């Protein structure tokens, strides 16, 4: 069995978001890039499954569509424990183009389980995993909050409104994960960082693809009015404000 994790390279979650060129481009100045938080959890869980599988899961790979500048993120994934990495050498334009490029790169590689994060924390498309499954013509299960490997197959836990379901899917399939598959992401060990330098990182060129959407420009949310302070001894006043001023009670 082989597992593949799709990795998105995103700005650190504490990044202050700014734009340049008349608000048409994200200001990458001084931005720290990280593995998309969900993808990090996916990788963590895949490594746990591999380690607990007595050899049945032979390999955990990672893949990302991105320019050369995104390679440190893939190296970090290798340092955390992935066995090898693929970088599709292209600027990620939109989810459709990225999914198509991923599908192109992996269609003959025989992965049994492909995992993607529910969304990437930058453009919040929530789309790559589902699109990839459709391009490959395979099943997808989304809102996945748990993955187990039992008697040679994968079982996933899917969150539904007010509960959860256990779902069996025919391999190969795409699991689109959210919080829960792992709680604390693994961090690279010193040894992992050393090994990552020599682990295979394959660069593939992408065949031309079309993006269907285009980011025209950006806006920051309007500034919030100052917070109105209420005396802790006077909760009647707060309730009154919520009722008459905010009109939410």
């Amino acid at each position: 069995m082989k597992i593949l994790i799709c990795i998105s390279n995103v700005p650190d979650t504490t990044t202050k978001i700014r734009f340049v060129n008349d608000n048409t481009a994200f200001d990458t100045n001084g931005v720290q890039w990280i593995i998309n938080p969900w993808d990090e959890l996916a990788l963590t869980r895949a490594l746990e499954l591999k380690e607990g599988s007595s050899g049945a899961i032979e390999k955990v790979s990672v893949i990302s569509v991105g320019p050369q500048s995104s390679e440190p993120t893939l190296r970090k994934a290798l340092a955390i424990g992935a066995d090898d990495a693929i970088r599709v050498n292209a600027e990620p334009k939109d989810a459709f183009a990225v999914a198509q490029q991923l599908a192109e790169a992996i269609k003959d590689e025989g992965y049994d389980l492909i995992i993607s994060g529910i969304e990437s924390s930058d453009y919040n498309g929530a789309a790559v995993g589902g699109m990839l499954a459709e391009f490959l013509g395979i099943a997808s299960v989304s809102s996945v909050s748990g993955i187990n490997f039992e008697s040679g197959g994968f079982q996933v836990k899917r969150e539904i409104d007010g509960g959860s379901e256990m779902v069996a899917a025919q391999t190969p399939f795409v699991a689109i994960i959210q919080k829960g598959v792992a709680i604390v992401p693994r961090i690279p060990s010193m040894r992992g960082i050393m090994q990552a330098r020599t682990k295979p990182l394959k660069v593939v060129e992408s065949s031309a693809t079309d993006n269907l959407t285009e980011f025209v420009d950006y806006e920051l949310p309007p500034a919030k009015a100052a917070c109105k302070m209420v005396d802790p001894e006077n909760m009647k006043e707060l309730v009154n404000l919520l009722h008459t001023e905010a009109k939410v009670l």
Partner: protein
Amino acid sequence: MSVLVYTENWDGKFKKLSFELVSFAKGIAEMTGTSVTALSIGNVDAEELNKLGNYGASKIVEVKDDRLNHLINGAYSSIISQVAEKEGSSVVILSNNNTGKALAPRVSVKLKAGLVAGVNALPSSANPFIIKKKAFTGKAFANVKVKSDKKILTLNQNSFGVKESGGSASVEAFSPSLNDADFKTEVKDVHKVTGKVLLTDAEIVVSGGRGMKGPENWGPIEELAGLLGAATACSRPVSDEGWRPHEEHTGQTGKIIAPNLYIAAGISGAIQHVAGISSSKCIVAINKDNEAPIFEAADYGVIGDVMQVLPALIDAVKSFKSEN
């Protein structure tokens, strides 16, 4: 030509979010000079279906099939695409909830339709088609142009509002063509918690952070939530510690919510937490630290100890309820 909206049902019933979706679809149909077709999959009775007409659907396509009792991404997205083709729909609308996130990407590929996920408002222009969406987990908005002829949008819950238009709709049954390849997943077991207000549906949310000090102190949060008909939520470390279930984790890596009122008790207001709640219509923060960043996100603030402020707030809500 039409705008197609997928209206999910919950045990045969629609929710406010379904009516909000149809209202939004109606807005787009008016901009593009077309009408709204709603697609319903599963067993929904005629009276319930007819409600959609009141929000702007002029036609309802109904699909019933016993194999569709659980969500199967392959089959459902195939049905939506078939109906979109049959109806000549140029815009397809789903909710940006778990179901919409599961289906919209697959439909996008099937129809070669550009997807904009997480929109809040009508497009600013229909031709070229430009629409605003959240980006950077609520820290910014992006104006996105869709270049393809067909478009797919997913609407954030509680962002557009419901608008009654007082119309009525015709209902038409449709039998999609499905094959084995559409049924590659199977639900083995279902686990449901009943009787709780769902966090994503809640109009009011009462949320606790690490400042609550421990799971044994959640009594006032639950009591206040009960009084207000609210859902309970928490910050990430609270769910990571196991004080509260993971479904309650709110923020960038948990649930993104937009209730009318969000009450944050003992939450510092880290950027990742605020990213998940900043679309709330009104935010109340209770924190003993007057420099806590949550006060920058809040509309009303109370500086004080949660263990004193919450009981006082509970009393005030009780007397408000008895007077109103």
